[in-house]
Every structure is written in structure tokens, then in C-alpha cells.
């Protein structure tokens, strides 16, 4: 997508301090529509601090967040989600005992009526959830089973389907391929490419360099809370990213 497009998400001088610890310092970041950006960095580099700020969990100590070019502040995760930023957590935030409809619509259930009594409309939720998954090219043969019966990739799809069904523009994925087998990892990669094709922005956090190179357009490297470097995937190689992560090369 073009450089002319307004970034979906932008941060300027974003900082977060916990007491004397500078978890994130003056971090500038941009995410364009249809772009997949990988965040790389060691533990404690600031990746999760950053994602927690832009998903409304933390308030920044300093700096600006812009969504679609408009400065915003997030009053909690619900607010960030309302403004189109959805985080897919590692534990997927699914209720294992419920079916896909109940999970996709959790907290936003569709209701119907029986005589004068309100009822949860399970059938319509299932059908619409199946529709949301079909958009991601995921097809389930049975919709009435609890999601614990699904594979890891399918469960990711439910979590993502939930996000896009509610018009998320930016999807943050924290280690989406951890704890998955190789075929399932490929499915998650396909899901991410699918989101890119639909013009969503994806922030992708991973420890796996091969995954980053396979799916992202750009890799942003954080080190000790600061931007250590930023590379287009076509213009770099894994060794360079590792050097940026550990900081042995001053060429950033």
C-alpha cells in the first residue's frame, strides 16, 4: 500500500516509565493499511510495553498516539477496541467450553425474543461467526462444538474472526505461532496474509525470525525500550536483525 495512505496507527515520542525504569523511550511508530509489521527484540526490550499502551492497558508517560491521523487517548482496553485496535492475546481469550458463536460474540451477544423473554440467539451467532471465519478462509464442519475441540490454528481464527467481525482496523498478535505445530503455524501465517489483503494493519510479535521474514513487510527492532532499527524485509537478512537486537553493531 502506498506511502500516501494515512497511517492506521502512529505513535510519536511514546514513552513509558515505571519508577526509574524506562520501559519505552521516545518511540516513533507507523502502521499503514495493509501492512504487517513485526516487532523484534529481546525480553524486556519494550515490545509488550508498547503493545500494552496501544491496546489501552497502560497509559503512556509521554508521547502521542494517533489513530487514522487523529490524536487519541485510550480509557482502558475496551476503549482501544472501540477505536478499532484489537489485541489477540497469547491465551487467545477464548472460553473453551463455549462454541464459536458464543466466543465471537462474547460481551456483544445477539438477542432474540421468546414471547416477552429475551433469549440469547445462539443460532444466529453461530451462523455469523461461521461467516466471519469463512472470510478468513477457515471452514468448520460443526459449529455447535466447544472451541476446545478445535485445532490451535482454528482457535486463532476464532479470535481473529472475533476482531474483524467488530471492525478492528489494527490487529496486534502476541506470539501467535508459539505453542503451535508446523502445519498450524502455516495456517496462522495464511491468516495474517489474509488480513493484510483486506487492508488491515497487523502488528506481529514473535521470537521466531523465520516467521517474521515469512509474513511481515517491515521489521521494527526494539532494544532497551528504544528503537534500535527498522528494515524492510526485502532489504535485510536475519543476521542483521539479530545484530540490531543484541546491539553489537552500531550501524543502526
Amino acid at each position, binding site marked *: 500500500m502506498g506511502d500516501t495512505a494515512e497511517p492506521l496507527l502512529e505513535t510519536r515520542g511514546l514513552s513509558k516509565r515505571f519508577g526509574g525504569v524506562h520501559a519505552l523511550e521516545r518511540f516513533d511508530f507507523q502502521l499503514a493499511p495493509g501492512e504487517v509489521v513485526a516487532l523484534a527484540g529481546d525480553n524486556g526490550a519494550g515490545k509488550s510495553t508498547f503493545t500494552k499502551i496501544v491496546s489501552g492497558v497502560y497509559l503512556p508517560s509521554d508521547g502521542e498516539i494517533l489513530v487514522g491521523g487523529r490524536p487519541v487517548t485510550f480509557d482502558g482496553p475496551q476503549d482501544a477496541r472501540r477505536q478499532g485496535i484489537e489485541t489477540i492475546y497469547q*491465551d487467545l481469550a477464548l*472460553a473453551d467450553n463455549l462454541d464459536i458463536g458464543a466466543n465471537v460474540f*462474547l*460481551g456483544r*451477544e445477539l438477542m432474540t425474543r421468546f414471547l416477552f*423473554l429475551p433469549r*440469547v440467539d445462539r443460532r444466529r451467532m453461530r451462523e455469523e461467526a461461521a461467516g466471519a471465519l469463512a472470510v478468513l478462509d477457515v471452514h468448520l464442519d460443526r459449529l455447535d462444538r466447544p472451541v*476446545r475441540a478445535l485445532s490451535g490454528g482454528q482457535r486463532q481464527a476464532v479470535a481473529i474472526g472475533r476482531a474483524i467481525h467488530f471492525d478492528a482496523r489494527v490487529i496486534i498478535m502476541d506470539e501467535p505461532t508459539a505453542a503451535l505445530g508446523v502445519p498450524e503455524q502455516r495456517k496462522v501465517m495464511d491468516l495474517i496474509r489474509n488480513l493484510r489483503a483486506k487492508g488491515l494493519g497487523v502488528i506481529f510479535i514473535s521470537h521466531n525470525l523465520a516467521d517474521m521474514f515469512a509474513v511481515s513487510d517491515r521489521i521494527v527492532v526494539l532494544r532497551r525500550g528504544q528503537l534500535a532499527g527498522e528494515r524492510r524485509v526485502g532489504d535485510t537478512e536475519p543476521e542483521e536483525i539479530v545484530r540490531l537486537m543484541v546491539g553489537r553493531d552500531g550501524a543502526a
Partner: protein
Amino acid sequence: MSATGIASAGRAQGSGRRNLLATVASLRAWLFLIVLLVTFEIWSQVAYGVSFIASGANIRSIAVFAVAPVLLGLGQTLVIISGGIDLSVGFTMGLASVIAALVVNATGNALGDGGALVAAIVAALAVCLVPGWVNGQIVARLKVPPFICTLGMYGVTRGAAYIIANGTTVPVSNSWLTTLGNGRIAGFPIVVLVTLLIVLAVHYLLAESLTGQYTYAIGGNSQATLRAGVDVRKLTTRLYILSALTAGIGGILYTGRFAAGAPQAGEPLLLDSIAAVVIGGASLFGGSGTVSGTIIGALIIAVIQYGLVFLDVEPFWQFIAVGLVIIVSVLVDQSQKRIGGGGRADG
């Protein structure tokens, strides 16, 4: 390690055995009930030459025996599905029984029998709101494990019931209240009809309403439910209040049936209520359970209790029988989960 072995062996045997086991597990409560009824029928025919099942009096008695386990089991079902447990139901029932008796006696002259009954019901249920609300707040807000919190409340309600009753039972004479406890409409005991209404209400709540949907969601993943914007605290509090209220209704009906308020009215019902839920197929880890399952569970308990009385067996055997049914029931559930491999996050 052995669990993995069993799981893979089960898979190797194909789906036939797995399906059979899953079916057996899902219907186990029904199977128990049928086996129990058949056993008692044969026993009764052989020992006394009369039918156990084909007797209106027996069926009515079993239904009346089932009233308290059903009512307390309903509240317990809600709490257990949400991942909690309520150990205070038994003495909340006793407290309600005592309050109902005292209020009926105190207001009988001023309000007449009918008015006094209404006052007693309102007062007893109002008092039950207190332990229910406090349980809910402590569990949901202060994150005290439900087992500990409601164990404490078990002590509080127990002590309060005995203190308010002055350490003894409180006899009542109120024609409306005893009619509620012992009367019949078209042959059906009124206590059973009242219980059926509560069953329908709780079934709607759990199976159809948003509250029910969130009860399952909290039991499945309370973090996810919270993140989805659901007010988990409020919901959890509501469930403990409902549990206390169903116990309170049980206490009022008890006072009507025995024409006396008794602090110990619900003493055996803590175990019975949990047993009904577990026999009915709910998981004590939360996330699953149904009203119909709990009712079957309560009926099994009632059949055992009444059946052994009917067959003139020493009543203490009922504890052993109910205990064994609980254990077998959980064993069937676990072996199905292990072999079915439909399991939890550990796969």
C-alpha cells in the same frame, strides 16, 4: 505418563468405543436413575410383594423428598458452573427457616395467616440476601477462593440461625404456611409445584438469558469474559445471591412442611446439593452443568433416601449409597475425558 498411554490407546481403538463412552457419560445420570429404580422395584417385589414405582404415594413422596436437593442444587449449579462453590447453602436454608417461623409467629395476630405468610416469605428471602451478597462480594471483589469464603459463611449462617432460634426449633401454627408445606393442588403437592416454577425460572436464566451465557463464560475463562467487557463482579455476586435465595425458598418450604423453623433444616443439604450437581454431570472446575442434570441428580438422591426408608433399611445406608454414586459418577466422567481426549489445555 500413564494418562498419555491410555489416551493414545483409546485413540488407536478408533472412535466406536469413544462414542459409546461419551454417550454413557452424558447419560450416566439417567442410567443411574433407571438402575436404581429397577433395583428398588425388584427388591420391593421380592421382599414385600408390592410395586415400588407403580405407586402414586411413592412417586409423590420421592418428589417431596427431592424438593430441597433440587432447590439448593439449582443455586449450587449456577455457582459451580461459574467456577465457584457455595458451602453456606445448608445453613442459609436453616436461617431462612427460622426467620420464616419467627416472623409468622410475630405477625400472625396483626396481619392474619395470609398476611403473616407474605411477611415471612419477604423477611426470610431478605435475610438470605445478606450471606449471598457478602459471599459474592468477597469472592468477586476480594478474590478470596469461594471454598474458603463460603466455608466461613457456613459458620456465620449456622451460628446466626441457632442464635436467632435460641438454640432450638421454633414451632409455628399458621394455616396458610402449613398448607403451603403439605397441601395439594389436583393431587400435586404444593411444594413440588413451587419447586417446578423455580426450576423453570432457573432453566430460563441459565439456558436462555444473558446471565446464563456469562455464567458459562466465566466458568470457561473468567479473564476472557472480563476482557470482553462483561461485569464479572456483578455477575458473580448475582449468582451467589441466587444461590442463597434458592436455599431460602427451601427453608420456607421446610418450615411449612414441618410446621417448625429449624436451624439444622438444611444441614445434610450441603452435601446433597453438591452431589446433585456433580451426579448431574457438571464439572467442579466450572464451565459445564445443566438444570436438567441437577434435577436428575437430585431425583437420584431422593430415590435413594426414600427408597431405603420404604424398604426398611437402616437410614444410615443412604449416606453410603449417595457417596458411592458421587464417586462412580465422577469416575465415569473422568475416564470418558481421558479416553475421549477431548480434554483440557494440556491436550
